[in-house]
């Protein structure tokens, strides 16, 4: 009976949005879309935008500049898409202010698309090769990130015009039970890390008794090296909001909270705008689209505690307490925020929902791997040619992802390992490159899906140092509740620090293993249970590196600074060249009697700047481990500080 009213409400909403959107867009002027999510801004998108505006004003050209979110191609930032009438829409990469000015002059004024700056066209055409030809584009399958970087995140009308919120409209005409059935049929598993079936969670919440049910969207993305949740919020917040509304409708919640890290100011701003826009047009608030479904969404800023990504700790934090995990059961779906049933889902999980309910659960189930259907979003960073966000079907092998899609390791260096899942994950070596990416295979290999951070390491990275880095992180972030986690991680870190300084003792590796096992057993939450993973996997796959540190006091990758030294090869050093002297931050480089350069080992901090600054044709700076291998070059007594600055 309500369906007719619902249809009318939605139709008028869409019509209004379309009118607003089309009125704001003209068809006969060029459009310049600039990626202005956090990574774009860091690469200088603000300056690029200003340069475009200035050049347009100077030449009296009418064109629209639209700030959009992130396409995920971080290596190409600032990334610009120019849609000039008469041409296909063209992507330009690394557009600095100079290129921006040139593009306005040559392309918009004279019609020359400046092929040297082109990344590719976005559609098939006869003029310019398309980006679809790149593996980075054609091997991806985008569901969550389909519209990221293509629509204006601050314009709800554009989202509605492109078919947004139509799934919510469709769902409101169904029974909540039917929505849950669709999600169950899709086999969607939570993207927060553990991979719990979303439909099941919802069913528990639906059946739980309690009047004030709440949906919490977990955007407390604390894993160093993962930033897809931020990008999704910054690029397409309404898709997430629609997902939240779908979840709330299915489980019978009237309130929802988006828990965003305070370290993501732009995401907080974008989400706040999106919530108020949705409320204004009646997609949030009371009697949504003329039905009796009410939903209030608020935003809570997390204050920078990694452990608050754990659901019970997150709830404590919203309640205004120290974010310490609680014992489960009862699970939050039974007793959660303020003692009421609470569903906590990750940003990606919720963002999948509009697509799942639009195409049906079975459509989703057919994508990806049998036990982990759908796609996975990874932030592939570290030593790869094309870092950025990649969305691939589950079951894709690590090799395909790292080498085919992201271009492999740069500078002809050798691949060493890939760190998956942040501080809770593990490092997988070469032998595991053919592992398919899905929840169970990765866990079996000793890593985990986690939030999807993937850091590629090459031969220049030391595994002991990487393990030490992660323990340093977990040790700082341990909330202190469980003794094993609080004190155990500190001791793990202590041993690893000893090893990286060359002060390791016999039996250290065995102690690391024993301690790791005990921390895993003696900790309550995921942080403690997984904190030793980086140590355990690196010990398992890279034991020889630990042994080199322990017995030979040598760092094979030459990273650990106490175990390495720099020296200048006098046969290669050129007389009169001062490149390294200027680069040294501590004035450790002196001039030898033969007018060449030497490094004062007592002053050197081993930053590697001299090595980077030495002209390629000389290539005279050498790095060795252990440090005793460096030849001793005496500093001439007369060549004190003032001599260096003179030379």
């Amino acid at each position: 009976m309500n369906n007719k009213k619902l249809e009318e409400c939605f139709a008028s909403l869409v019509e209004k949005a379309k009118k607003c959107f089309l009125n704001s867009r003209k068809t006969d002027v060029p459009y310049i879309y600039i990626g202005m999510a956090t990574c774009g801004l860091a690469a200088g998108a603000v300056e690029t935008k200003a340069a475009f505006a200035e050049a347009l004003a100077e030449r009296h050209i009418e064109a629209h500049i639209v700030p959009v979110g992130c396409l995920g191609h971080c290596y190409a930032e600032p990334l610009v898409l120019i849609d000039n009438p008469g041409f296909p829409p063209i992507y330009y990469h690394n557009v600095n202010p100079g290129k921006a000015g040139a593009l306005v002059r040559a392309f918009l004024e004279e019609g020359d698309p400046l092929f040297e700056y082109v990344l590719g066209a976005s559609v098939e055409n006869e003029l310019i090769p398309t980006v679809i030809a790149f593996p980075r584009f054609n091997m991806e399958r985008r569901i969550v990130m389909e519209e990221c970087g293509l629509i204006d995140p601050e314009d709800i009308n554009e989202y509605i015009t492109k078919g947004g919120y139509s799934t919510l409209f469709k769902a409101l005409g169904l029974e909540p039970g039917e929505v849950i059935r669709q999600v169950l049929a899709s086999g969607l598993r939570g993207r927060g890390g553990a991979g719990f079936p979303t439909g099941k969670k919802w069913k528990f919440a639906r059946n739980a008794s309690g009047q004030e049910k709440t949906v919490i969207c977990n955007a407390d993305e604390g894993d160093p090296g993962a930033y897809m949740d931020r990008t999704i919020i910054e690029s397409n917040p309404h898709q997430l909001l629609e997902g939240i509304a779908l979840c709330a409708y299915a489980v019978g919640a009237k309130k929802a909270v988006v828990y965003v890290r305070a370290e993501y100011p732009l995401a907080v701003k974008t989400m706040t705008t999106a919530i108020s826009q949705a409320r204004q047009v009646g997609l949030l608030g009371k009697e949504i689209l003329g039905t009796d479904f009410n939903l209030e969404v608020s935003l809570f800023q997390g204050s920078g505690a990694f452990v608050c990504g754990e659901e019970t700790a997150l709830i404590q934090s919203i309640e205004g307490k120290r974010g310490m995990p609680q014992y489960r059961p009862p699970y939050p779906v039974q007793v959660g925020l303020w003692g009421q049933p609470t569903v906590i889902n990750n940003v990606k999980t919720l963002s999948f929902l509009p697509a799942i309910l639009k195409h049906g659960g079975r459509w989703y189930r057919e994508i990806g791997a049998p036990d982990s259907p759908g796609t996975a979003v990874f932030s592939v960073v570290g030593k790869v040619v094309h870092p950025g966000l990649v969305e691939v079907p589950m079951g894709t092998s690590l090799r395909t992802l790292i080498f085919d899609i992201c271009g492999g390791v740069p500078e002809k260096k050798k691949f060493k390992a890939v760190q998956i899942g942040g501080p809770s994950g593990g490092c997988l070596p070469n032998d595991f490159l053919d592992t398919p990416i899905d929840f169970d295979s990765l866990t079996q290999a000793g890593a985990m899906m986690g939030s999807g951070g993937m850091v590629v390491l090459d031969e220049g990275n030391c595994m002991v140092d990487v393990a030490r880095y992660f323990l340093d992180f977990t040790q700082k972030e341990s909330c202190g509740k469980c003794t094993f986690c609080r004190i155990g991680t500190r001791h793990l870190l202590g041993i690893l620090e000893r090893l990286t300084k060359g002060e390791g003792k016999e039996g250290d590796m065995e102690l690391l293993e024993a301690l790791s096992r005990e921390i895993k057993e003696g900790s309550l939450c995921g942080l403690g249970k997984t904190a030793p993973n980086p140590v355990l996997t690196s010990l398992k796959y890279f034991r020889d590196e630990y042994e080199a540190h322990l017995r030979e006091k040598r760092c094979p990758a030459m990273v650990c600074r106490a175990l390495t030294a720099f020296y200048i090869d006098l046969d290669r050093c050129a007389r009169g060249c001062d490149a390294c002297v200027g680069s040294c931050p501590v004035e450790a480089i002196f001039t030898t009697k033969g007018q060449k350069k030497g490094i004062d080992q007592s002053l050197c901090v081993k930053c590697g700047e001299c090595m980077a600054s030495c002209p390629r044709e000389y290539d005279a700076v050498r790095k060795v481990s252990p440090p005793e291998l460096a030849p001793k070059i005496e500093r001439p007594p007369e060549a004190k500080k003032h001599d260096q600055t003179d030379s």
Partner: protein
Amino acid sequence: MQILILFLDIKGLNCYEGKNAEMEVSVDEIEEKIIMEDIASILVTFAKERSNLIPVLQIIQHKHRYLSLQAMQAVAEYLEISTSEVYGVASFYNQFRFHPPGKHQIRVCLGTACHVVGGDIVLENFERKLKIKEGETTSDREFSLERVACVGCCALAPVSVVDETVHGRMAPSKVEGLLLGFEIEKERKEREERRSEQ
């Protein structure tokens, strides 16, 4: 309070160790009075609910850049909870700081991607040039230095955030230039002030 600080010491949260709790930089009385009046005006806009504790602390820190003991006492009084509870919550989260930061805030990212390309060397160079350790403020209150876990710009590693500007692809050698820029700017301003006085 003593116990709390001890506990935090054990945990090894560097930025909250005892040495920083005793502020090296002093805030004068007039400044403090203005801050306290403003905090009182912020507090009345919130309902007296425990769940408002973190948002209140966030707003106070956003406006005044740190949480003083007096500020935390005022919050405790308003929300009718003990001061130690407010401190307990505030000290749990990395976002809150308890001493006034410098005019320019330097945050060096030490996320995984930044670490593997030498983020710690960049941090060390800042420490050397500013002659302070991470978590501290220079004695002239010009700069404060912090490390952050990840700012989410991993493809541009190593990253440092100076005030609100994100600097991608940092290098130890860029540190000096960055600080020099601020110094030149400061000198220029001082010159202009002197000129306008004349």
